């Protein structure tokens, strides 16, 4: 089993990409906002925002759609990353 070889290389390379972490923080804040509104001002969630939809529905759908969009964006920005990974795989 040669998987420990990976451990000996520079630890920096096993961290996730920085742009991914930024997107993660953005999404986490968006999620925290949703959870806090639900917990502390649930009545706000009943307010109708657009086309007869209340905040609960709009925010809930937004959390799902934004998750998909951010992940696509991440895939797009990380296209160039394949090379480094393949090189790593070759070196093992």
């Amino acid at each position, binding site marked *: *089993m040669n*998987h*420990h070889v*990976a*451990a000996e290389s520079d*630890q920096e*390379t*096993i*961290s*996730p*990409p920085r742009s*991914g*972490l930024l*997107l*993660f923080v953005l*999404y*986490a804040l968006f*999620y925290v906002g*949703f*959870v806090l509104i*639900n*917990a*502390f001002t*649930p009545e706000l*969630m*009943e307010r*109708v925002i657009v*086309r*007869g*939809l*209340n905040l*609960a*529905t709009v925010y*809930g*759908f937004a*959390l*799902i*759609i934004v*998750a*998909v969009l*951010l*992940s*696509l964006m*991440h*895939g797009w920005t*990380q296209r160039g*990353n*394949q090379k480094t*990974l*393949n090189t*790593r*795989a070759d070196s093992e």
Partner: protein
Amino acid sequence: MIYDPSPTAVVVFFAFVGFTVGLSFYLGSRAKSSAGYFAAHGQIPWFINGVAFAGDYLSAASFLGICGMIAAYGYDGFLYSIGYLAGWIVALFVIAEPMKQLGQFTFADALDARFQSRGIKATAGISTLIVSVFYLIPQMVGAGVLIQPLLGFSHWQGVVLVGAVVITIVVTAGMVSTTWVQFLKGSLLVVFSGLLVVMVLQQGFTSDVTSFEVMGPLAIDDNASDELIATQLKRSLYQVADDAWPNESPYIRFAHQSGGGFDAYRKQMTEQGLLLLPCQTVSSRSGQTLVDGMPLGRGDEQRELRPVGHLTKLPKEFQSGSSASANSTGPLGPIEFLDVLRRSEVMLWSSGTISHPDGTATKIYTAKPTSGNKILRPGEHPRFAGIREASWSGKINFLSLMLALFCGTASLPHILIRYYTVKDGDAARKSTIVGIASIGCFYVLTLYLGLGAMTSGALDVTNNNMAAPLLARSISPFLFAIISAIAFTTVLGTVSGLILASSGAVAHDILSGVLGLTFSETQQVRVAKMAAVVVGIAAIGLGILFQGLNVSYLVGWAFSIAASANLPALVMLLFWRRTTAAGIIASITVGMFSSLGWILMSADTYDKVYGLDPAASIIPFSQPGIVTIPLSLATLVVVSLFTSGRASGSAAA
């Protein structure tokens, strides 16, 4: 409700199972080595793996549990959809690529990559086993719940059947066949749910005020006697000598107008006067099941529970003629559907228990007209009602659950092992993106499926888990067969993934990693297959034992334990250079036992599992995540700081 096994459902179900097992045998011939068994040689195409992620993740609890919860309580079920999906963001942005680069076959591999410590292998292997077993129980219980109405089998027969098929799938080909089963199931689930939603939207809403009628408001005094109420309604009270029904109760029973038995109502005082809300009751007396006072059945002197789920009032623009006639909206767009529902009124059902002096109990279901506005906001489910109360414990409980959902996904072992089936970090990332897109699509659909079921007039008041299949049945029997077969494959797929994760933990982490047993490739696979059979049999036993327990409730446990035990170690390993082996071991151990202990001593468990008084619990709120995740993290930091001086020593331990 009494279910008739449908021949179409049986045929479609066995066709699905036959195809799945056949595929397994075919693929099995191509996976002889341990790399093949545990990780499908790392050769699964990323798109297939991505959909298989969705297949792994959309377990019986997701599909049946969430749809059922939305159908019964509205928006609250959707909170689970949102939390489960948000968890994938942690998986994609933080865990996916490092997991792929660090490990080989199992989650313990990745954690141990820097240290080569037997302690890490042991604790991570045990935590994998515990989380997988907790996740397995609800899947097996779900299988039993499903098979009963579909094929007419009893609960234990269903569990044994599913267990046997799953063991076959795992033993024949390991990860290769598991992946293809998951791919098949993931795609079918999304496609057919989409089709069902289109049909629900095409159908629109139809109001129904006759199936269950609220009586009143009666201009009557608050403490008026039951006799007075009966006189005013020109009904006679139901009176049987040995009925053991308590004298003082919020319920009133009238003699059924034709034949025996009674019609029960719950008295509710409002500003307009006294309302009588329709009820259905089930009691068990001297070995016989009674529905509304009559033996269960379809004969003349028998009664069965009536299907529920009715919309009682549509918005003004759809009302025509007398209010008693059925009005219909016709086809609705996806946004219009939610808008119309918000301005409508739906009959929701709650359940309660009446204890009789003779020691028996009656389960009583009460209908309550509820405005659509309340259905589309959080806080109707008893578990979430705390957010509308002044006390802090309800709010903290909610925050704790949402935290566990967010952190749990990226720490579930059967999800993590899927990163080893693709060839590199890039493919790991791409397949996660495909997974998120498919799961996101599906979760949007769950809201429509749940709300569609809520107003379908076809629900079983005793069993929310059946909401999605029953919605399908109300539209077309063939669709019912397909959806039920998919729900089964859902159980099969998820259970095989879990058994595979557990067998990997036993054979690869514990036996070779910890006990230092050296196996040849073929031996390791053989040991893993034996472990899979043992775990499979244990799962069958537990599935039968925990028959009565709520499915989604148990999944919540698995998430809390996974998030507390695994996530802090995984994240800190990636981001904090001073993390030590001892820190990781301590963090997993503390996270695992604190969350498990918290759950076992919580008021919820007292009430639902042990049947004890929930007030006797010393735990202030039921969801552990908000305490145990930070606790596990703090343990890691403190122990790492204490042992970092000896880091080189511990690395060799």
